[in-house]
């Protein structure tokens, strides 16, 4: 083991109260199988999974419910055995609060597994392993939900030199990765070795914040004899867990805008994702559950191992319910998370933490005041942007200017809003501007298609008109030449015959 000494400090960031000890006092508990499971078909980045079951079907634990639709998508499996009750639009844990397609499963409580297929990855090609991973349902469990098979894919130009394990867990309150390292360190290390050889990386560096002493001790002792796995302690400064920030902290490499870390020979995975990949390859178990922190205004805060699709209500109930009843829950951390539309949503792959809202989290104590141009936000911005300029441009719908000030580099970490003395909800303005710009560019694409189709239609109509005119002209020409003359002669002959008849009749 080697402890790498040098830490490259990024600009800005904040040091907030971590509040992590609330939920680390108890061990991870497995939540019992709930009476109903509601699985949203969209739990990942990319296309919605393609349904593979119908109402009334009996499914086993680990059976495919929906498969990945294309490459940028992820599969969804039955978290336990049971019967499909319905497929309908239900509330999902999404900031929009809008319903989306969900599969409802009634568990039979037998928890009977489908036949598992561990992957003999050492004896098959990387491509085949990757193909199998496509339907593992594993996505980035740190919260981004990016399909993991894409990160493990062979489709890249530069070889991966360094595998970085994101164990920073920088947001306050969240402790699911911390507890995972404490209790499942062995699985994690085996998973790291597996992913390292899958990627062909030379070394692995685990990046961990200095507030997770216990997890650090456990992981350090586990990697003592591993020559290529190192652990690097980074200071507790939010947002050190952001991918590009952590890479800089560890390696001092700044990944430029619109570039991926893999182009610099670095690939990063969250600790929970590594364990999920390990369980899939070693035991053939697809992604069925995750560790969720439930904390804040709750009677028994702790970490739970929860099956995907479990109603949040059962989780809250098992944790003793809210201390002060307000029925408000936040998903994710207090910095980047959002208020859940209702308690009637289910646990998904992105749900790393549920914070039962403290009364002061909902009550707005001070209303926002005008910007006083103090530039505190610029000092706090970990991406070195000019948040105050971005705020002015977003507020006045000057999207082009906002883009020129690199709006899309913003990671929405919320440091600017946190330090703002005027309490301006800065990040909300950036999110608004970003989604406006995205929808405008989609509209522009659609307009281009419409223009092309209209141009083609005009061209087609012109061509048809011309062809018709040509055909008519041709027919006309043919008629005058032969048929018409013949017709005229026939008619003349008939007339002459008639005249003759009349003459003959007169003569008689």
């Amino acid at each position, binding site marked *: 083991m080697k402890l790498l000494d040098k830490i490259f400090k990024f600009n800005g960031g904040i040091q907030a109260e971590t509040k992590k000890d609330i939920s680390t006092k108890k061990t991870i508990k497995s939540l019992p199988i709930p009476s109903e499971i509601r699985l949203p078909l969209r739990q990942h980045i990319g296309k919605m999974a393609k349904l593979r079951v119908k109402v009334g079907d009996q499914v086993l634990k680990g059976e495919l419910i929906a498969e990945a639709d294309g490459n940028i998508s992820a599969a969804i499996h039955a978290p336990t055995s049971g019967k499909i009750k319905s497929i309908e639009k239900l509330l999902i844990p*999404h900031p929009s609060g809008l319903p989306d397609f969900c599969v409802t499963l009634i568990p039979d409580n037998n928890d009977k597994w489908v036949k598992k297929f561990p992957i003999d990855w050492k004896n098959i090609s990387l491509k085949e392993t990757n193909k199998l991973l496509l339907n593992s349902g594993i996505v980035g469990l740190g919260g981004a939900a990016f399909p993991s098979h894409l990160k493990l894919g062979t489709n890249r130009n530069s070889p991966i030199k360094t595998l970085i394990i994101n164990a920073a867990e920088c947001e306050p309150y969240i402790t699911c990765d911390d507890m995972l390292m404490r209790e499942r360190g062995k699985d994690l290390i085996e998973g790291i070795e597996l992913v390292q050889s899958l990627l062909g990386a030379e070394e692995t560096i685990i990046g961990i914040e200095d507030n997770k002493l216990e997890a650090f001790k456990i992981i350090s002792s586990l990697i003592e004899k591993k020559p290529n796995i190192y652990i690097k302690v980074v200071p507790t400064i939010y947002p050190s867990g952001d991918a590009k920030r952590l890479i800089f902290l560890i390696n001092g490499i700044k990944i430029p805008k619109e570039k991926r870390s893999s182009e610099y020979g670095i690939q990063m995975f969250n600790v929970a994702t590594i364990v999920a990949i390990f369980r899939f390859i070693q035991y053939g178990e697809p992604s069925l559950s995750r560790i969720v922190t439930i904390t804040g205004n709750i009677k028994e805060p702790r970490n739970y191992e929860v099956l995907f699709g479990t109603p949040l209500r059962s989780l809250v109930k098992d944790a003793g319910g809210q201390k002060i009843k307000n029925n408000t829950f936040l998903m994710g951390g207090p910095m980047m998370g959002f208020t859940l539309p209702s308690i009637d949503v289910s646990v998904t792959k992105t749900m790393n933490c549920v914070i039962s809202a403290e009364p002061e989290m909902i009550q707005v104590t001070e*209303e926002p005041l005008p910007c006083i141009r103090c530039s505190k936000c610029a000092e706090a911005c970990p991406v070195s942007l000019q948040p105050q300029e971005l705020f002015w441009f977003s507020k006045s719908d000057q999207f082009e200017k906002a883009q020129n000030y690199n709006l899309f580099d913003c990671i929405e970490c919320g440091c600017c809003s946190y330090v703002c003395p005027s309490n301006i909800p800065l990040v909300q303005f950036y999110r*608004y501007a970003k*989604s406006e710009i995205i929808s405008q560019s989609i509209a522009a694409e659609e*307009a*281009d298609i419409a*223009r092309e*189709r*209209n*141009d083609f239609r005009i061209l087609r109509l012109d061509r048809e008109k011309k062809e018709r005119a040509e055909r008519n002209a041709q027919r006309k020409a043919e008629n005058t030449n032969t048929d018409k003359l013949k017709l005229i002669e026939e008619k003349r002959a008939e007339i002459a015959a008639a005249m003759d008849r009349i003459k003959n009749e007169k003569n008689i």
Partner: protein
Amino acid sequence: MLTSILIILFLAVIIGLVLGFSSVQFKVEGDPIIEKIDSILPQTQCGQCSYPGCKPYATAIAKGDADINQCPPGGEKGVRALAELMGVEYKPLNESHGISKPKAIAFIDEDTCIGCTLCIQACPVDAILGAAKQMHTIIEKECTGCELCLPPCPVDCITMEPIEENAENWKWKYPVYSIAVSEKKVNN
């Protein structure tokens, strides 16, 4: 005297050659201003502007025959963009050309459709699929929501369905500050 005349003549010949060459070599096909205007227009091809499509309207604006506020699907944002491009004052949408409304997509009630092909002939972007005495249907992705298929339908089986907000096309809203807090202050 003679040298100066010769120099001027020489220069005139050289510049003439350069200008002549570049006018052939760098000739601009089409009118760039029309293209620019056309790229702002929403390409609904609805004809509400009283021109047969977006391109003819763009041509008319460029010529100065049409005003910039005749495009209801483009809405206020479209008029503002056109005003900026043309260097003229913004003016509100001319309501005699229709009002701006959220985008909708045509939907054919397949039980009522008699397969007359009249809507197919009316569609400016060929977004309707069907044949004589066969049921017709809208290609949802291609429909611009121009409503030109509605009047020709003899059995009124086409309706406009507004695009619903769902988890995929949902947008973050413009932040609105809490009003409750302000009210409290007033009461105090």
